[in-house]
């Protein structure tokens, strides 16, 4: 219980720190912020959230309905292939889109030269950001809505039809309202990602809170300003969290029967063709074209860029992701275990709090954890100076401590989910059986639980590993000198507009990102047997 509380406290630290920044107001900076920066930030953020909500909602729900409830050529392929965009961090989709569609990009150049066409909408715009974010994040809605439709759609639709509704009416009046909590939960996850996104916004030069925090940190060198911006962003995030938690409690697994497969709606040839075209277009835009373009660019630069420095970036990425994943898995295991030892509502709330960090944007965590660690550092230095004649200006600041703590807070939920559900699947009788056979607490863990949890631990570690590989703002803002990773390299190259050179590190991140998707679909396919 103490341990669980400590982890939960770690999540609260950044929140407390960022809000306490209002205690020491630097007047002119705050005035500058409220007068010039804030109105634009709030406007940008609201438009973005609104646009992405509509975008992921429409894409996710329509594709989920098609693959879960309809039969058309290629459905089985699309069923899992439509998840592939999860492997592409939004910032990768973003710079590929700009590289392709910009005024100087191949598409516009070709149109201009061959057809004399100009006046394609500018990609570096609000619409462009929304489009890219929707394409990158729709899988969250797709995945969760697909499950909802598959478990309850067919029966509900048949019931509606037996009561005289057409299929279209049945969809809008029964299936869609039934799936609403699931869809809402998926949309909230996508919106949290949107609020947290830094890379895409930086590439598009679209000012939101995350980029503003970064600028306050690096250009204004004002920690309080960064913290104040972070605290406003937290308010936005909390709204999303509340909605997400509320819709989650409404998700009851009222699975009504099985066998959706035999009852899929057979689409007429014309409609089936349209479905194929639509799903194919989304998949192409969100995954196939970006990945092809990445590969082409990589081919152009690989000879020059695949040098020792590149391997150093890759090594740092792997090392950090590995350390982070191990730490997350260890803490998540202890947290889940604490819940098993002492169930109860107090423990449940503590666990919920401790895993709330997934909602906090990396930029917020970077600021919120850097400030207290820096303060601790100053205290240590003073103490060290007074007592041991220590002479230096940083102890903890220059280490990986802030970065790893931020990873832990941000990604604990990612690791906690699979481990906790894995632990829940182990019946309590198993524990009692082991005890009756003379096994103590330690033996229970090493001889029974760990072997039984192996798959869950592996899933948790893989998911966390990949998420940390993709992570940009925490790494960018808190890395010690010399710890450049693949994601940092992508940021540096894209901020110079060197899309081709950003492709090589991106490709490595994407390839790593495909692993958990394969793992997920493979387990999905095998869990029925």
């Amino acid at each position, binding site marked *: 219980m103490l341990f669980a509380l400590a982890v939960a406290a770690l999540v609260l630290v950044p929140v407390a720190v960022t809000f306490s920044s209002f205690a020491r107001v630097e007047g002119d900076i705050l005035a500058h912020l409220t007068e010039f920066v804030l109105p634009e930030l709030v406007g940008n953020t609201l438009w973005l959230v609104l646009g992405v909500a509509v975008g992921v909602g429409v894409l996710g729900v329509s594709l989920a309905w098609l693959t879960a409830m309809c039969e058309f050529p290629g459905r089985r392929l699309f069923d899992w292939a439509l998840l592939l965009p999860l492997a592409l961090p939004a910032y990768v989709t973003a710079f590929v889109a700009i590289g392709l569609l910009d005024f100087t990009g191949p598409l516009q150049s070709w149109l201009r030269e061959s057809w004399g066409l100009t006046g394609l909408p500018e990609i570096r715009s609000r619409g462009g950001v929304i489009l890219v974010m929707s394409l990158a994040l729709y899988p969250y809605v797709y995945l969760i809505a697909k499950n909802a439709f598959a478990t309850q759609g067919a029966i509900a639709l048949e019931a509606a039809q037996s009561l005289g509704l057409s299929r279209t009416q049945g969809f809008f009046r029964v299936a869609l309202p039934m799936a609403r909590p699931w869809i809402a939960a998926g949309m909230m996850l996508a919106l949290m990602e949107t609020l947290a996104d830094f890379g895409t916004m930086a590439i598009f030069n679209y000012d939101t809170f995350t980029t503003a925090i970064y600028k306050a940190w690096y250009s204004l060198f004002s920690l309080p300003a960064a913290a104040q911006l972070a605290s406003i962003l937290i308010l936005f995030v909390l709204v999303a969290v509340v909605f997400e938690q509320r819709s989650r409690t409404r998700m009851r697994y009222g699975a009504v029967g099985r066998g959706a497969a035999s009852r899929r709606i057979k689409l007429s040839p014309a409609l089936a063709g349209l479905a194929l075209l639509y799903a194919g277009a989304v998949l192409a835009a969100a995954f196939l074209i970006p990945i092809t373009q990445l590969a082409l660019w990589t081919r152009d630069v690989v000879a020059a860029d695949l040098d020792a420095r590149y391997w150093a970036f890759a090594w740092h990425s792997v090392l950090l992701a590995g350390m982070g994943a191990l730490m997350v898995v260890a803490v998540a295991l202890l947290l889940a275990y604490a819940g098993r030892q002492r169930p109860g509502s107090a423990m449940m709330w503590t666990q919920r709090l401790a895993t709330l960090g997934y909602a906090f944007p990396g930029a917020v965590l970077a600021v919120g954890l850097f400030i207290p660690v820096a303060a601790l550092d100053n205290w240590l230095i003073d103490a060290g100076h007074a007592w041991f004649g220590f002479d230096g200006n940083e102890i903890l600041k220059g280490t990986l401590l802030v970065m790893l703590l931020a990873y832990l807070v941000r990604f604990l939920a990612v690791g906690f989910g699979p481990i906790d559900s894995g632990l829940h699947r182990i019946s309590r009788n198993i524990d009692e059986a082991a005890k*009756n056979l003379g096994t103590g607490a330690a033996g229970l863990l090493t001889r029974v639980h760990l072997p039984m949890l192996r798959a869950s631990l592996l899933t948790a570690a893989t998911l966390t590993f990949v998420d940390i590989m993709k992570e940009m703002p925490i790494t960018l803002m808190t890395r010690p000198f010399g710890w450049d990773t693949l994601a940092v390299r992508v940021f540096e190259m894209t901020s110079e507009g060197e899309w081709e050179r950003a492709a090589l590190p991106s490709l490595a991140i994407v390839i790593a990102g495909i692993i958990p998707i394969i793992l997920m679909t493979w387990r999905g396919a095998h869990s029925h047997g």
Partner: protein
Amino acid sequence: MAELILDSVSQSYAKRQIIADLSFSLPEGAIGCLLGPSGCGKTTALRCISGFEPIQSGEIRIGGEVVSRPGWMLAAEKRRIGMVFQDYALFPHLTVAGNVGFGLRNESKAARQARIDELLVLVGLTAHADQYPHQLSGGQQQRVALARALAPRPRLILMDEPFSNLDVELRERLSIEIRDILKREATTALIVTHDQHEAFALADWVGVMHQGRIQQWDTPYNLYHEPGNRFVADFVGQGALVPGEVINDHQVEIELGVLEGHIPVECDASGCDECVRNCHVDVLLRPDDIIHDDDSLLLAEVENKAFRGADFLYTLKLPSGQHALSLVPSHHNHAIGEKIGIKLAVDHVVAFRRE
């Protein structure tokens, strides 16, 4: 193996008394059974014995050693009790042999392997030693669970509803097999079930539980033929209660005639004649207490009948309107509504004072 004694054990959870003043003793090597409807506290009793629940009064002794008393209990892993769970709780990541050997950690490799082999022979699963639990049938999984529990030579084996996950035909066969296995290992065992057929097939001693109390702790034969109270009479076996009048200490009269035997009703401490004579009782008639006889002058109407293969179970309506059951060989096929001749054949008179 060891004797198990429960001495007025009580347990309550959240101010609700689950078991009250529970006492019984199970001799070394005997198989006991707690029988009762769901919610009667039998599973809680089992968990108190295995060391997963504390007790609030009384004490539990195994082989003379106190293992539970109010405020203290020996840890479950130190009790040397084997438990077979309702869902078997086999370790899915270990093979059959791995499961059976799980509790044999402190023995040498050779001794361990020998014990595993011995048990696999005993439960007839030698050919499945290297398979994983999910590859086995329900009955096989259950035998693995039993072998696993027996392996460390526990002082006592506990089984919680051991057959509830199996289909009916399998239950009967397995309960005989399991009794056989337990007897060959000479293990003291306590089983919890709500099914009296299982209890009768398995156990030497059966305790009928109701509302947290043991109503009667006795042999299966006695439970059936000499139930100690109305609950036991009703819960164990079939039968009907018909009104009767006590004539004296060895005779009771019901509408079908006078029954002779020991009348186990104490009407009054003084035992005066008047009192006994006027005592109103209900007499238990088992289906085998009423036999069909075409020559009998006593007639009863067939109100319902159930064909059970070798025999019919007739529900009869006596002239007074009372109901009674009769077991009749199946070649006597009578129609509903027909009047048939019956005769009493009561060995044990069971009578309860009318409240």
